[in-house]
């Protein structure tokens, strides 16, 4: 995990256990050079815890260790631990040493005895291998041989004194009565709890039919620790404790990069897509295409070349692929190339904690950058609501701190929660973006409506959109609001087609008008031309008129001259006279 095990947060006086989560709870591990009491019922994981502590010390802290086995033989312990891949054989006997100290069943006891012989033997062994860690597994077995409480107390003192003197970091495991470890009534354990510096209680119970393992640090002298019960799991690599809820949490880097949801218009609605590293919650009734939206996201992520993990709680791997393929989302090639990992888990097995830890493990293994969990509400059905909430919280926390973009869906039960889209896990408060899918039943049909309830840090549309699934993919469409009601499906189509025909009519009318106008224009043009012609004619007429007038005047004046000539006027003009003759 990125937000844990930072060297700076490790106190020098702590011995890391290497158990994921536990070192966080205790801020670094067990008290160095001190004794820790590990209590728990049968099968609660005490031996594994203790063995992992030794293994981690030997392998990673240069601290060799001794395992004193009072109950199981070292052979059995070894074979039980084989599955964890710890390779204990490599460490033996120099770094890890097993002491088989099981009392023989036919052991007869007569008179008092003590542990000094064993301690002397261990002393020699400790010196030889310079052991720094030691485990006494099932000390209660030995204590039971002692005749009375006083003797038990004496031997515990002897052991504790010896451990302190050698400054060994020790774990003493002891069985607690029944499942409830807090009901320790045996005197010696009560006494031991006071004596040791750290006490850890392992609990394995069944809550509403779901197996639940919890770990609680009961006391830890001189150190802060998470006092709450933390669920744990015995997984592939050993003991894993669900991380501390608040301690050691580092705020995730804020990234402004956007990643597409795989649906173009949804990206637009969100102002560019989801934020990278954000957690997105998609809620909705059954069949509102929650998985499909997950599919588009996963496909888009794979297309970008990002490693993606798809966790399906409801459907089988093949079913998911088929269903998504039916709406044009094809993931098979990515699965084949290994970029996409689909994990289908049946709800019946395991509890919320187990799921979370598994998701974490697989996610880490896969190196996932994008994560889909469909549906996350499964967690609530496999645990009490409180635990499930914690799990969901940590899931978001974890994905965020790893920069993973998380898309999870949550089923909303239509019957119980018709009006409000309340998510049972209340992840909605933690999620950055919350998309709600809804059915709108109207005019005898159901249509899918999509709305964004919240989206932190992004401008987002407040409009309900209709989500349309077809074999070519997922698209969204504007809805129509008419008289305060949102129209979808056929009604929307009707509205659309009505509008279409209205537009057509308007177009035709426009065209007609144009033609009319053209005609009118032509008529006018013609009229203009004829008028012009007329004008010209008039002008010509006018010119003619003027000319006629001139010539008439000239004619008149000439006539006068002629008349004068003809009258023989004395003032004859010789020139004219001559010419006339």
């Amino acid at each position, binding site marked *: 995990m990125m937000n844990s095990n930072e060297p700076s947060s490790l106190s020098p006086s702590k011995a890391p256990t290497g158990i994921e989560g536990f070192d966080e709870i205790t801020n670094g591990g067990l008290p160095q050079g001190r004794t820790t009491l590990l209590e728990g019922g049968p099968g609660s994981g005490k031996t594994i815890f203790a063995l992992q502590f030794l293994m981690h010390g030997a392998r990673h802290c240069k601290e060799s260790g001794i395992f004193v086995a*009072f109950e199981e033989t070292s052979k059995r312990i070894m074979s039980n631990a084989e599955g964890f891949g710890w390779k204990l054989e490599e460490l033996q006997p120099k770094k890890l040493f097993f*002491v*088989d*100290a*099981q*009392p*023989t069943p*036919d*052991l*007869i*006891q*007569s*008179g*008092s*005895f*003590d*542990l*000094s*012989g*064993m301690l*002397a*033997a*261990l*002393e*020699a*062994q400790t010196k030889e291998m310079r052991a720094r860690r030691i485990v006494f597994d099932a000390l209660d077995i*030995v204590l039971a*041989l002692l005749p009375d409480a006083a003797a038990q107390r004496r031997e515990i003192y002897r052991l504790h004194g010896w451990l302190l003197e050698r400054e060994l970091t020790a774990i003493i495991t002891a069985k607690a009565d029944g499942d409830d470890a807090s009901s320790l009534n045996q005197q010696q354990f009560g006494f031991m709890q006071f004596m040791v510096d750290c006490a850890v209680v392992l609990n394995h119970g069944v809550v509403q039919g779901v197996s639940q393992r919890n770990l609680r640090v009961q006391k830890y002298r001189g150190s802060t620790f998470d006092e709450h019960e933390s669920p744990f799991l015995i997984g592939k690599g050993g003991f894993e404790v669900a991380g501390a809820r608040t301690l050691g949490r580092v705020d995730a880097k804020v990234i402004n990069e956007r990643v597409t949801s795989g649906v173009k218009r949804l990206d637009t609605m969100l102002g560019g897509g989801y934020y990278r590293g954000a957690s997105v919650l998609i809620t909705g009734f059954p069949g509102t295409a929650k998985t499909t939206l997950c599919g588009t996201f996963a496909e888009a992520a794979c297309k970008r070349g990002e490693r993606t993990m798809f966790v399906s709680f409801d459907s089988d791997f093949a079913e998911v692929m088929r269903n998504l393929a039916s709406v044009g989302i094809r993931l098979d090639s990515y699965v084949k190339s290994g970029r996409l990992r689909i994990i289908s888990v049946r709800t019946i097995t395991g509890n919320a904690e187990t799921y979370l830890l598994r998701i974490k493990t697989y996610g880490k293994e896969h190196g996932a950058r994008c994560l889909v969990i469909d549906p996350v509400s499964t967690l609530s059905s496999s645990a009490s609501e409180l635990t499930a909430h914690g799990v969901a919280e940590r899931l978001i926390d974890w994905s965020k701190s790893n920069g993973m973009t998380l898309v999870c869906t949550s089923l909303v039960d239509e019957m119980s929660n018709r009006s409000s889209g309340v998510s049972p896990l209340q992840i909605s408060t933690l999620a950055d973006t919350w998309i709600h899918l809804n059915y709108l039943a109207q005019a005898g049909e159901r249509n899918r409506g999509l709305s964004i309830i919240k989206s932190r840090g992004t401008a987002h549309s407040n409009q309900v959109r209709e989500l349309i699934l077809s074999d070519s993919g997922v698209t969204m469409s504007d809805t129509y609001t008419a008289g305060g009601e949102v129209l979808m499906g056929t009604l929307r189509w009707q509205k659309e087609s009505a509008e279409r025909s209205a537009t057509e009519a308007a177009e035709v009318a426009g065209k007609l008008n144009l033609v009319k106008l053209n005609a009118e224009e032509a008529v006018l043009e013609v009229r203009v031309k004829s008028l012009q012609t007329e004008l010209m004619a008039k002008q010509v007429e006018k010119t003619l008129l003027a000319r006629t007038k001139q010539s008439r005047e000239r004619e008149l004046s000439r006539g006068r001259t002629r008349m004068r000539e003809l009258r023989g006027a004395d003032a004859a003009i010789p020139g004219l006279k001559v010419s006339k003759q």
Partner: protein
Amino acid sequence: MSRRVSYKFRLYVAGDTQNSAQAVANLSALCKAHLVDRHEIEVVDVFRQPKRGLADGILMTPTLVKLVPSPTRTIIGTLSQTQPVLQALGLETVVA
């Protein structure tokens, strides 16, 4: 028959601590009473031979192991309660 059987013991002690010293004393008294001339006692001080105690899986001291005759028997403690010890060693019937 049984009278002639020789006994072989190994007694693990932790130095001369009280319990250990008591066990040594109790064992020799027992042998004197019931196994005259037919016993052998090896005393292992785990303080001096710590590896031995570890190798033999000795948890508590004192511990008495009856090696011969078989079966092997292990008795822890100071051996102060004689009856159970005799019973465990198969010596009771002889006494009776």
